[in-house]
């Protein structure tokens, strides 16, 4: 036999064996198709059409259960021929659910993309149900399970369809349907909706963070609009928090339609956050100036960043948005412009010297880098891509009269600190250290207090008497409460970090002015 004959022989024998061993299921098919067919669709229609109004979700959960029953057995017969996916519809609240839908809007599959979604889907089997029925059931289940209420009311609907116009139409329809469902459920909902098209980077991000492509698209927009936000932290947040962040930080989201308003009922609110910060600083509406309040997120915790100025000091507080706890506080002597002779000609920063002459030019803001540019300069120096940097902070400061951006960020278990010349973008100083400090062991211990910390710092520097602290900061660093201090004396500049519980000096840096 030649090769071809052998191939033919093999295939012939294979076919014969399969023919011979194929079981006969004809009778089961006949009974199956006879009993299943009339039941399935008629039942769904009956339930959905007869009892729609008042409490839609209760009814529809029952309908979904009925669908589950019917499809559960192997005897559900599709009238639908079209098994091809026409649209992909994603529903994000915190539960993330993806449905594939065919041309006649029958659900081909419904997939839970996170654990919350598994709870919502429970043992509903939406396969074969119409998209409307499925949406009704899902929203109902989310209301029932407390994922949507007055405290967190935002829903994101994402539609993907090759035909953009069709996708947009479906988006609009689903959006108003969901709005109606929420109204029926006595919830003032905020519905965000968008269409997406296949995008390799987005799918990759979605996969990496275990979120829907729709949510990934939303998060990517936020991160691109505001370089201090990072993807990893935002990916963990429910849609309501993302919605709140966007509006608090005044980020316009491209291609996302909004109805209603995100509820901040779960949070203390900006006014209360301001009160807490003011009380701590001893400030009042009369004394505080340049007040700025912005929502932020740090490792899944929502915070209000409250910034203001009182006299010669600038204050910054991070107030936990849920509890009102102050998580970070900082008081800094107000940046002073390089006006006097102090400091000029004495820069010892590891920068070559044109900084001094340029310092004089930085009176106008026009010659200064933006926060984004400064951050990018630091990131590219560190070789860290923006996507992988988190806990970013950028502050403008004056160092020996030179305008400097102080930049901090974390990436890959490393903490980076940079000082970037605000005029030239030059890296003046940088430091990176392992990000693995153990969390504070003194869970039940007593905080030593800022004054004690200052005393410890002065002792270490061998100083006594009245020393002006230009920076006093109290913050959690990887779960450990620390004080960060900066002060100047006798032409020297000191920077140190002190453990707030043990009083241990964690880092020490001193820099001669002359």
């Amino acid at each position, binding site marked *: *036999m030649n*090769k*071809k004959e*052998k*191939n*033919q*022989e*093999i*295939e*012939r*024998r*294979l*076919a*014969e*064996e*399969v*023919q*011979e*061993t*194929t*079981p*006969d*299921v*004809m009778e*089961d*098919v*006949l009974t*199956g*198709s006879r009993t*299943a*067919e009339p039941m399935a669709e008629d039942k769904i229609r009956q339930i959905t059409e007869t009892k729609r109004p008042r409490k839609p979700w209760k009814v529809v959960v029952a309908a979904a259960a009925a669908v589950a029953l019917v499809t559960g057995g*192997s*005897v*559900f*017969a*599709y*009238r*639908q*021929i*079209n*098994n091809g996916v026409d649209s992909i519809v994603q529903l994000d609240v915190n539960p993330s659910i993806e449905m594939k839908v065919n041309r006649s809007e029958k659900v081909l599959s419904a997939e839970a993309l996170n654990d919350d979604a598994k709870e919502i889907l429970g043992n509903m089997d939406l396969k074969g149900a119409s998209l409307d029925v499925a949406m009704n059931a899902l929203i109902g289940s989310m209301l029932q399970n407390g994922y949507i209420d007055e405290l967190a009311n935002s829903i994101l609907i994402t539609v993907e369809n090759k035909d953009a116009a069709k996708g947009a139409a479906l988006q609009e329809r689903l959006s108003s349907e969901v709005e109606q469902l929420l109204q029926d459920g006595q919830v003032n909902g905020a519905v965000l909706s968008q269409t997406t098209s296949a995008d390799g980077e987005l799918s990759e991000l979605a996969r990496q963070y275990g979120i829907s492509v729709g949510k990934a698209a939303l998060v990517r927009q936020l991160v691109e609009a505001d370089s201090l936000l990072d993807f990893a932290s935002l990916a963990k947040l429910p849609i309501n928090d993302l919605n709140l962040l966007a509006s608090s930080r005044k980020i316009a989201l491209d291609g996302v339609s909004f109805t209603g308003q995100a509820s901040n009922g779960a949070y203390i609110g900006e006014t209360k956050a301001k009160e807490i910060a003011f009380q701590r600083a001893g400030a009042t509406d009369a004394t505080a100036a340049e007040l700025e309040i912005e929502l932020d997120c740090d490792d899944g915790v929502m915070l209000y960043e409250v910034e203001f100025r009182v006299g010669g000091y600038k204050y910054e507080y991070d107030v936990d948005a849920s509890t009102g706890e102050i998580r970070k506080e900082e008081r800094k002597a107000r940046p002073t412009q390089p006006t006097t002779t102090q400091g000029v000609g004495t820069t010892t920063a590891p920068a070559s010297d044109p900084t001094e002459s340029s310092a004089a030019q930085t009176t106008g803001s026009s010659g200064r880098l933006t926060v984004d540019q400064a951050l990018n300069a630091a990131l590219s120096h560190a070789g860290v891509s923006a996507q992988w940097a988190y806990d970013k902070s950028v502050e403008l400061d004056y160092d020996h009269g030179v305008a400097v951006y102080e930049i901090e960020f974390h990436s890959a278990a490393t903490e980076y600190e940079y000082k970037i010349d605000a005029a030239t973008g030059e890296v003046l100083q940088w430091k990176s250290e392992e990000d693995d400090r153990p969390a504070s062991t003194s869970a039940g211990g007593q905080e030593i207090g800022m004054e004690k910390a200052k005393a410890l710092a002065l002792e270490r520097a061998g100083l006594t008497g009245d020393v002006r602290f230009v920076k006093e900061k109290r913050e959690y660093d990887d779960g450990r409460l620390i004080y960060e201090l900066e002060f100047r004396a006798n032409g020297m500049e000191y920077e140190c970090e002190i453990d707030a519980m043990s009083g241990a000096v964690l880092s020490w840096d001193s820099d001669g002015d002359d």
Partner: protein
Amino acid sequence: MFFFCLTSAIAETAAHSAPTPDEGLLAEIAQGSEEALRALYAETSAAVYGFALSILKNTHDAEDVMQDTYIRLCGAASAYRPEGKPMAWILTITRNLARMRLRESGKTVYPDTPEQWPEETALFHSGSDDRLVLAAAMRRLADDERQIVMLHAVSGLKHREIAALLEQPMSTVLSRYHRALAKLRRELSGMLAE
């Protein structure tokens, strides 16, 4: 009834008893004709079963999927648009159902038991040559290879149609097909000796 396939055997390589169901049957099934369903079933069931088996690798699951394929087909027949490929269309249903079952495979009722596909040597002396070929295909071929060979041998689909059905490039299907047959020739060299 299976043997009006002489032409297709010439057209491509060995496509034995390749079913070429009449599209009209689907229209009749849509009207509720049991007779048409029986006719279609008789002609296509081996291809459906073989394909399901090549994906699922166990006879119980394959039988379930075969049954579901025809039940679903009854419901879907009315929407079938004649395009000259009823076999490929039916096998698409089978593919979807089988893949669904694979995805749920944690729940597979009947685990893939090796005993179901005995070593060739055990069969070699039992005189059951055909069974030997099937067992070799089940044991020796990679999943993609087995599906391609099965479709080619049993359903009579062309490589082009197989590529479409399995959502693989034509060139990939061809190279996998040739590699698979090379493996089988080697495995079965004793049987094919002359």
